[in-house]
């Protein structure tokens, strides 16, 4: 069973963006599904007039006097305060950017990659390193996954997050080597502990200069001892390790299954859909191409996919702000409310709880989250633009709020509740925002 065109376009915009505006939905229905996929994905690697209008924070120069900052309490305090200010500005910038984006597929891919390569500002500390990584996802995310993984691995945020820079040639730190294979490229059960140790040796000596953000390999601390790794011999560099892990058959299944899990519904690398997608992905490891294959796969436009994901809090909050026409620059100027809601829902951008990133689906369906969503919905429907619902006759408001929020059909139960509230458009919008149809993705 497949979905009708309207439902398909709405699903596409929810998953590969943050929901369709009524204009986007009707344009998509006219153009057809395949053409709309192409339109949406054509933004990848391209400018984003809406998002680019939200200026990133200005970052203070990296500290050249680290020793003084470490030893002088007053200097330390003042420096940490400036970092905290930058942290907050960075969070506000990205949320505002997602709200303002006119290239939503690119912002969505950036969010998806942040979840795939999670790093947290609570450990990285330097907002500009988080920004730099975020830009890497945005500008290179849709290209070659091997090149992206190489870039992410040598980028300051990941070097700090997974503890590069303190190992020795004789004594590797396994953190990055393990997560590289388990989470980023291959999946658990596809390598041995001997592979983890071999890879850890290959990554010894990877260093970050905090004063410049420059990556280097310290010859003194790097082990040149040739390692046997995943069936290859003579491996002694981290770059070689990444080249190998990203081209394994396991990776050809893992990467498509990870993206399918974020865009359609959770699957394992052993699933039939991973089998379908693996050959095409292996041919070029191109993420843009893989996205197109996923969105064009026959299993994508099915009720199983449509009922397969709950909105993550960032998707929920950003999607609702966009639907109610809240300008991104207002969010950037006064971000406290939106950021507090995200914190209370358990998903602060740039601050995933662990290297596993965030959970999915029922992870977001707690009673605590239900209350926060309701509070947010009530406040937002009082503040945002709900004229589409307010201008409709009460009898037409159930349908109008479906248009506003890009929910083509309401269940009978939800329609009954919405219709009971139809005298007051604000109440209709509040209820619709906390309905199971809108909470799911």
């Amino acid at each position: 069973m497949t979905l009708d065109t309207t439902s398909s376009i709405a699903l596409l915009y929810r998953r590969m963006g943050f929901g369709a505006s009524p204009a986007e939905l009707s344009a998509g229905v006219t153009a057809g599904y395949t053409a709309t996929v192409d339109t949406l994905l054509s933004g990848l690697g391209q400018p984003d007039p809406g998002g680019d209008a939200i200026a990133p924070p200005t970052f203070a120069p990296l500290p050249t006097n680290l020793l003084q900052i470490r030893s002088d309490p007053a200097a330390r305090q003042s420096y940490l305060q400036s970092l905290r200010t930058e942290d907050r500005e960075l969070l506000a910038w990205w949320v505002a950017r997602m709200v303002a984006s006119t290239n939503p597929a690119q912002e969505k891919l950036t969010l998806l990659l942040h979840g795939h390569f999670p790093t947290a500002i609570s450990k990285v500390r330097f907002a500009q390193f988080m920004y730099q990584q975020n830009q890497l996802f945005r500008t290179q995310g849709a290209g070659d996954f091997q090149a992206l993984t190489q870039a992410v691995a040598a980028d300051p945020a990941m070097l700090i997050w997974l503890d590069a820079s303190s190992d020795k040639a004789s004594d590797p730190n396994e953190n990055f080597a393990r997560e590289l294979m388990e989470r980023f490229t291959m999946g658990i059960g596809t390598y041995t502990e001997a592979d983890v140790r071999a890879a850890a040796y290959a990554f010894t000596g990877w260093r970050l200069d905090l004063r410049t953000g420059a990556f280097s390999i310290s010859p003194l601390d790097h082990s040149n001892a040739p390692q046997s790794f995943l069936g290859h011999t003579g491996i002694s560099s981290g770059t070689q390790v990444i080249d190998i892990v990203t081209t394994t058959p396991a990776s050809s299944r893992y990467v498509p299954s990870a993206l399918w899990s974020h865009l359609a519904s959770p699957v394992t690398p052993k699933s039939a859909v991973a089998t379908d997608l693996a050959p095409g992905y292996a041919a070029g490891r191109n993420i843009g191409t893989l996205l197109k294959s996923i969105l064009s796969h026959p299993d994508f436009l099915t009720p199983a996919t449509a009922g397969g994901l709950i909105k993550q809090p960032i998707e929920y909050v950003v999607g609702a702000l966009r639907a109610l026409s809240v300008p991104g620059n207002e969010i950037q100027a006064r971000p406290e409310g939106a950021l507090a809601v995200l914190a209370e829902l358990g998903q602060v951008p740039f601050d995933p709880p662990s290297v596993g990133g965030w959970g999915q689906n029922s992870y977001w369906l707690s009673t605590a989250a239900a209350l926060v969503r309701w509070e947010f919905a009530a406040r937002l429907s009082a503040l945002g633009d709900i004229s589409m619902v307010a201008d409709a006759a009460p009898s037409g408001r159930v349908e109008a709020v479906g248009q506003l929020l890009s929910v083509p059909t309401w269940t009978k139960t939800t329609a009954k509740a919405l219709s009971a509230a139809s005298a007051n458009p604000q109440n209709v919008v509040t209820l619709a925002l906390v309905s199971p149809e809108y909470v799911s993705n």
Partner: protein
Amino acid sequence: MPPDVNEQAGSHPTMSRRRFLSLAGAGIAGVAGANALGAAFWEQLAGAASTGGTKGSLGSTTGRTLVLVTLYGGNDGLNTVVPYTNPAYAPARGILAVDPSTVLPLGEGFGLHPSMPRFHKLWTDKHLAIVHGVGFANPNYSHFESMDIWQTGEPTDPSGSGWLGRWMDKTGADPLRAVAIGPTVPTLLAGEKVQAAAIAPGPIRLPGTPAQVARYKTLASTGRGEAPLLAGAARSNADLLEVDRVLGPILAKTANANPLHLTGADAPNAAGSANSLAIANGGGGTSSANVLSTQLSVVANLLLAGAPAEVYSVELGGFDTHTEQVGTQSALLPQLDTAVGAFLDAISTTMRGKETVVVVYTEFGRRVAANASAGTDHGWANVAFAAGHPVKGGFYGEPPSLTNLSEGNQIYTLDFRHLYATVLDQVIGVDPASFLGQKFSTVGFL
């Protein structure tokens, strides 16, 4: 249901630069009330429930309550319960070895990390059980797989429901039999059909008039025959109304209580979830505030007021000490020590509190040898703790060898499901085998 004609269509205000402040809920305001409330307050709040100590509709069939403390990241057990007289310890740990002159002696050659005086007091009072060598077969060093194994209780296929989620599924639909403190529900309390309630610190204020709440209730009605996730979303809405009905009055009255009598960074903070704190501190930055004491303050408030939950779940993260372990552990273990110690003190005056058992666990131990980054990598076996008035203090299980290692790790001597069997049998009062898939003997700490 008739349309609500009494409510007028409101005009929405024009855009204002300041308005988005108002998107924030009440929680973020951060209530760090420190006023101690008198005994009369608790009496009034509790009614008969917390003082009766009988089974009734409240509490488990044993009359006991379980508080699970999950330490995320893999706490280094070897530097928590230190085998300081073992000649292999100091050489293996190098610069990370805890100075033997500072440990809090436990006997049998073990000592607690110096930052855990309250645990030491529990030990000398014979209310702390230390279970050695806890783990499972075929460990794999993955945080996620290991934590999933612990939380599902299924070492071979840790993809299903939580071990206490299964208990909730099989024994009724009431989400309030287990309560997680925080924005999300941990896997251990997630069943196929029933999910534990989750509450944030602070009062619950439903944002609507009674008429609006009634429509929300319609929206939340379950049994919709839709996709499971849609039904799950409806159920979480319905469960919220139940949480508000049963726990709302207690949470409202205790919003400013400080039941653990802690001050400074240990005082409860209504905006005290880890993420909220990060934001409250300007986004991102770690905080020295004790998020565990905030969570356990909520648990104490609920317990003292006679809330019906049989299980509570709280958590503390940050234990993944690949680098600079000494500083990190010395910051986190005091939070654990202070929060759990003060919690048990706070509830000890009530019958319900006297029947409460706190269990502390983490996903795996850490490598015996230190790495070059002044830290330790992922390992295998670890210690677990059980504390509380019903606990028979002492050591349980076999300490794993420090010299007969596998891949540099201590080998487990006790399957973690023996702990679960003990808790299911002695705290929850059910047959452990029906929730663990097979029979495990109990550990004798209860």
